[in-house]
């Protein structure tokens, strides 16, 4: 509550003036607003609302770390307890960005250390995080409860050691798909011997052996631990010993799920089923990094309770999958490798009636690999799992019919990402482009916000997207389209378009002109291996002062003026203008 202004010298405090009453009320009301879009809207009402909203916002979300400077954020919001920052665009995951492009966390962390010393949660995605940054986190935020790093790189086990040692209040340390350097440091031993308040520890992406004895001790000293995701250097026998110590576990990443070569004999004799039986609260299972399939049945006791199962690193066949999936009738999230084939997916469709999210990954992630799933699997899934909201499907063969059927069977779809791995592949039965299938998706799935297209596509597909994809926020395009009209349809037709990522498609400069009125309402536009010229990109940069236009190649070769087309142009809205931390080979126009 604010203090009211005194009426005059010597007088006691008078009644609060109406403005302040309003602001106080507003603050009390606004603190219940959690959705950031609602908050953004509220802050635009008037100055009073702006201030009140700024005072009550507790979570800071930065969708693009270069869109705004740390200082601007910390000046506006004073009571932040949780931050989310995203850095590189998604195509960075596929090697399309040069080394050292940016997204350095240091600047942000330093600003937060000064402005929000009592920060409780930090979530970084696709940011560059160094060991020093982790040290900064450990030393600056004594109240830090949760640290989550997703798809980050630049740090190693030495940074983790500092965190483990110094972040005494840490409840959540989640590392998901990060690239972690092996500094040959025993970071697990660095957690305090006296015990921790850890509730979640996820290190499945850490590609280094760990000190198992230390891990056991850690578990012993962490009675609140509910989520544990081990890396592949934990054998199944070791997993057993951990599970019997922590039967309260709800989320388990099982590590390698195979015996180690040395202790194979002893490990074979353990009663794994009993260990799983004891874990009565287990709802989420993942890992299986080097699975020995004969051990899979050990999970049977928990199948009925599972809501999430990630077998996407497990090379198993349909038969092996069927034996466990038939008990998983509560499954909502399922990730799997295509080795299970269409048959395996049929088994999923038969049982998992409540499935919301399906991801099918290729065991052989090469363009000309043999695909093990096809339209048959997709069709089966769509017929069996009507509640699906999110599909990611890698295949080599697909038909418009199956995609269309999916659009009708699964009207709740919010995310549809189909990746036909062979480039420019048409419907393999009719030999037609995949336009009609994707058209049906945008037509029938009225809640769709995220779409990734593939296969042979003409401008027609994009015409459909522009006409019907009114809620689409993220669109990924690769090796598709015939003319610039395709992207024009999308830019002009999709009012909610936030992120457009395009590669290897014949779109040229006129697309940029068409997109001009929309770029400020988008977070970014990525176009690589298209037909954009340097001068055209330069013109856009000139006309749009709040748009940063970067051009670069995927390596460290700089952009040459005389090149016909730019390799990659990445443009994003920003309040700050060109950044000062770009490497030399990244040109900012």
């Amino acid at each position: 509550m604010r203090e009211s202004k005194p009426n005059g010298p010597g007088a006691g405090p008078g009644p609060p003036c109406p403005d302040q009453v309003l602001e106080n009320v507003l603050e009390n009301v606004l603190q219940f607003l959690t959705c950031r879009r609602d908050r953004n809207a509220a802050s635009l009402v008037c100055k009073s609302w702006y201030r009140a909203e700024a005072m009550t916002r507790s979570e800071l979300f930065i969708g693009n770390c270069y869109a705004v400077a740390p200082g601007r954020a910390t000046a506006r919001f004073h009571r932040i307890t949780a931050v989310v920052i995203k850095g590189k665009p998604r195509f960075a995951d596929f090697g399309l960005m040069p080394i050292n492009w940016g997204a350095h966390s240091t600047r942000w962390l330093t600003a937060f250390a000064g402005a929000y010393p009592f920060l409780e949660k930090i979530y970084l995605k696709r940011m560059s995080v160094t060991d020093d940054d982790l040290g900064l986190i450990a030393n600056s935020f004594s109240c830090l409860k949760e640290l989550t790093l997703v798809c980050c790189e630049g740090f190693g086990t030495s940074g983790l050691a500092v965190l483990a040692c110094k972040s005494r209040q840490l409840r959540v340390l989640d590392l998901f798909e990060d690239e972690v350097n092996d500094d040959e440091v025993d970071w697990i031993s660095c957690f305090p011997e006296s015990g921790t308040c850890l509730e979640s520890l996820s290190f499945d992406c850490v590609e280094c052996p760990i000190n198992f004895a230390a891990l056991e001790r850690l578990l012993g000293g962490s009675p609140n631990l509910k989520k544990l995701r081990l890396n592949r250097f934990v054998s199944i026998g070791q997993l057993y010993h951990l599970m019997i110590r922590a039967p309260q576990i709800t989320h388990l990443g099982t590590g390698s799920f195979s015996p180690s070569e040395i202790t194979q004999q002893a490990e074979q004799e353990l009663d794994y089923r009993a260990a799983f039986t004891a874990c009565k609260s287990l709802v989420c299972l993942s890992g299986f990094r080097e699975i020995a399939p004969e051990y899979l049945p050990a999970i049977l006791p928990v199948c009925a309770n599972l809501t999430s199962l990630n077998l996407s690193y497990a090379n198993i066949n349909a038969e092996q999958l069927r034996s466990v999936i038939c008990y998983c009738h509560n499954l909502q999230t399922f990730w799997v490798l295509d080795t299970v084939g269409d048959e395996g997916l049929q088994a999923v469709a038969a049982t998992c009636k409540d499935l919301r999210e399906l991801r099918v990954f290729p065991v052989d992630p090469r363009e000309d690999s043999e695909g093990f799933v096809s339209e048959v699997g997709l069709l089966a899934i769509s017929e069996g799992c009507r509640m699906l909201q999110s599909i990611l499907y890698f295949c080599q063969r697909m038909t418009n019919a199956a995609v269309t059927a999916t659009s009708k069977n699964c009207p709740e779809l919010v995310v549809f990402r189909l990746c036909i791995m062979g480039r420019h592949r048409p419907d393999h039965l009719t030999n037609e482009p995949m336009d009609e299938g994707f058209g049906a998706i945008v037509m029938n799935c009225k809640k769709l916000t995220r779409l990734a297209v593939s296969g042979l596509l003409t401008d027609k597909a994009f015409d459909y997207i522009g006409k019907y994809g009114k809620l689409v926020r993220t669109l990924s395009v690769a090796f598709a389209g015939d003319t610039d009209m395709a992207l024009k349809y999308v830019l002009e037709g999709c009012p909610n378009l936030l992120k457009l990522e395009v590669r290897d498609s014949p779109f040229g400069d006129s697309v940029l002109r068409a997109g001009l009125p929309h770029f400020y309402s988008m977070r970014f536009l990525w176009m690589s291996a298209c037909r954009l010229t340097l001068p055209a990109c330069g013109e856009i940069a000139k006309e749009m002062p709040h748009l940063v236009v970067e051009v670069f190649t995927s390596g460290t070769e700089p952009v040459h003026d005389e090149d016909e087309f730019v390799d990659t142009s990445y443009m994003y809205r920003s309040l700050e203008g060109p950044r000062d931390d770009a490497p030399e080979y990244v040109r900012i126009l």
Partner: protein
Amino acid sequence: MEVGPKMEETELSLGLGLGLPGGGSGGGGVGEMVVKSSGVGNKRGFSETVDLKLNLTTTNSNSSAKDKTVTSPPLDLMKNDHKAEDVSSKITADPARPPAKAQVVGWPPVRSYRKNVLAVQKSAGGSEDETEKSGGATLVKVSMDGAPYLRKVDLKLYGSYQDLSDALGKMFSSFTLGNYGAQGMIDFMNESKLMGLLNGSDYVPTYEDKDGDWMLVGDVPWGMFVESCKRLRIMKGKEAAGLAPRAMEKCKNRS
């Protein structure tokens, strides 16, 4: 062109007499590469090594196939050149002419993290190898004498010695490249120049090859190097000098 022992931050020509006749390449642009010839198994004499002009601060990759001065078609040297393949796919992005079977960078869109995991699974034996090599990744451990940490690199991510050298430079920030560094191939035939180079450098990258021998990085074309490298070690130039005679021996025996 002799280059002094101090690391120059501007253009470096690889010493050791690699300034080939006409190999100045006009001397103008940085990052130009002239591939004279490079059949695998040919005796790599003086005139057949690659002339690289390198700029250490702005990195000019020698692997760009867009480089207009490439006079001969990319041969084995370009085998692992992602950019070459990427460019070829870009040129034929027209759906009417589907590109050849060359792999394209970043397609299918599977995260390198996942690719590496699957690649590790493929290589037989679950225990961690020093090299985990398969369709996906060629991960090798990199250690540097005196540095408290190890790193791993995926050699397939780089198209040339220059790219690798850049990456190593970033990983080991105190790693100072001598004139040699990992900037290109060395002329092993000229012993005195080689020794001069090694004695003058701070650190020199070496690698363990398939036979278990420790070799100096840069003795073979990039593609061959990726195939045979099992582990990298960045050691002091003076220590590496001990490897030179053996490396030369091996080089002679190869041709």
